[in-house]
């Protein structure tokens, strides 16, 4: 097959845009943004990683996950526990070897499930695997019983509510409402130095890019098409010989792992993880971001997360009340008028620009006798 130059250019346009974006994010932004802004942007990127996961589960697989804050939180707490332990060990004034909040709660020994998190490798592995395993377990047990749609969404939300109440209630184990914070040290280095923050930012950009590529591959594979089929007609898929349970469980687990990774990166960047960041409302905000960006498009979902979180920082403090009205209105407007989100609007605009004369009419009706069997 010979490839003409314009055709080659069209084929390369996607990858080139992608590489240009990464290069700009890695080389340009650290120079342009002051450290405080760069840190904020890195936080948004963490939410963008979560958004990729939600797009896979919801946009592709039709599983509305109203509890992704739980998986974000599991990843975040795994990292937070390690950072807490590392900082406690590095603190010359702390003679107990226990995190401050445990000392205040009267604990004398480190709880058993905290012990593995002394090692950074265990913590990182747990940040990915624990959310994945939790989602796989929950997903498998409900999907195999054909619980789906709104029921699944509500179960997710109930899980988010229960998880937050657990975190707040078990203060001596989890830090309670305050969560985990005050950890200046990671692997012997200060976390607050500009170098550390730039490094974290670079890692976040690369992780986002890697997960984007992975999920794009998943979407383009047969499995990605199977997910569309399951989303649109789950029962029909069974009569092709597929068991939708494992397919959905895998997508849900992958999605949760992305959220866990986002959470694990978020903690050292933000410097805190607390129940208020992962409950029912934050979880649904993660979904709002994906809806605004475009649930069917990975790039759209990620962009939506960056935009909505940037808007949150800009407006939340100055017009707290107005911002909430705006968020509520955005929910209504996007779902009602633009179910494909910004990604859909961009595509429509691009089509309108490149072909200004063709009206956007549905494809001409097919001649019913064109196809002939035999």
């Amino acid at each position, binding site marked *: 097959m010979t490839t003409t130059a314009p055709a080659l250019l069209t084929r390369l346009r996607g990858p080139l845009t992608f590489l240009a974006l990464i290069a700009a994010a890695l080389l340009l932004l650290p120079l342009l943004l002051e450290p405080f802004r760069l840190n904020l942007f890195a936080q948004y990127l963490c939410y963008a990683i979560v958004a990729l996961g939600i797009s896979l589960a919801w946009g592709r697989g039709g599983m509305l996950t109203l509890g992704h804050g739980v998986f974000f939180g599991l990843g975040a707490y795994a990292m937070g526990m390690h950072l807490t332990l590392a900082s406690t060990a590095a603190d010359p004034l702390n003679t107990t070897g226990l995190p401050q909040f445990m000392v205040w709660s009267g604990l004398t020994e480190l709880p058993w499930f905290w012990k593995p998190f002394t090692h950074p490798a265990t913590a990182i592995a747990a940040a990915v695997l624990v959310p994945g395993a939790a989602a796989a377990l929950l997903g498998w047990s409900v999907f195999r019983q054909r619980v789906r749609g709104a029921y699944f969404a509500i179960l997710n939300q109930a899980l988010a509510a229960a998880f937050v109440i657990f975190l707040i209630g078990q203060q001596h184990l989890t830090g309670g409402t305050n969560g985990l914070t005050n950890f200046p040290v990671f692997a012997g280095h200060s976390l607050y130095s500009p170098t550390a923050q730039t490094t974290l930012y670079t890692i976040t950009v690369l992780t986002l890019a890697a997960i984007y590529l992975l999920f794009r*591959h998943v979407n383009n594979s047969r499995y990605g098409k199977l997910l569309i089929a399951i989303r649109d007609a789950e029962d*029909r898929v*069974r*009569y*092709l010989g597929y068991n939708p349970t494992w397919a959905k469980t895998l997508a849900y687990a992958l999605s949760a792992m992305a959220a866990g990774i986002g959470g694990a990166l978020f903690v050292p960047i933000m410097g805190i993880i607390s129940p208020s960041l992962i409950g029912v409302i934050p979880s649904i905000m993660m979904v709002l971001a994906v809806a605004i960006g475009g649930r069917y498009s990975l790039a759209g979902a990620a962009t939506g997360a960056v935009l909505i979180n940037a808007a949150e920082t800009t407006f939340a403090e100055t017009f707290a009340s107005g911002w909430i009205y705006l968020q509520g209105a955005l929910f209504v407007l996007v779902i009602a008028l633009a179910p494909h989100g910004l990604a859909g609007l961009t595509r429509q605009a691009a089509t309108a620009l490149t072909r200004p004369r063709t009206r956007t009419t549905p494809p001409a009706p097919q001649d019913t006798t064109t196809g*002939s069997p035999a």
Partner: protein
Amino acid sequence: MSLLTIDTLTVTFGDFTALDHVDLHLDEGQLLFLIGPNGAGKTTLIDTITGRTRPTHGTITFNGHTLNKRSEHQIVRAGIGRTFQTSAVFEELTVADNVDLAASARLRPWQLLRRRRTLPPDVIRHLDRVGLTDHADRPAATLSHGQRQWLEIAMLLAQNPRLLLLDEPVAGMSADERTRTGALLTEIAADHTIIVIEHDMDFLRRYADQVTVLHEGRILTHGDVTTVQNDPRVQEVYLGRTPQKATP
């Protein structure tokens, strides 16, 4: 040998008995037409064979295995494929992807995760067989009603089943489309075992050999088309009214 054996199969929904002690034997290579008035239990029978409905009583044996407790996808994997009365294709996927998905059900999960670069030859062959090659890259949503039924048949063939269950494959088709579907059916029947549910008597006369008549959940009679057509009981319950032309 008997490929499918249905033994005293009974299905009840609450007080309503949809199937009442149905016995049915099907040999390898047979083409069986299943007819009966609306509500006779035809679709329930196919639903029960394919695991969509559970038997209240009785057994279904396919190729030496009892199907009663298996789930839908396990039954498909055992070698039974079906189409639906109202065509159910995946509208957002392309025609080729619909067939490819049907052909890939036996792949291992990690094989599904690989990117497909070219269409497998089998998929191309099945598309060609039902005459949808020209439409391969269009979304299935753009197909006409008749084309969707053919796509379903291509998907069914791609599953490579030992027994095919077709639920009213020519319902709603034009005369021209019926003829083509009939020719396709004859061709497939040469190397497959098939049960066809059909209302259309013209179609039946032209393509059927063996016919089983269901009425009120029971098997009324069974035999070749002429015998069945001349059976007074059949005429009474089914053909007795105006001779049926094509269903609207």
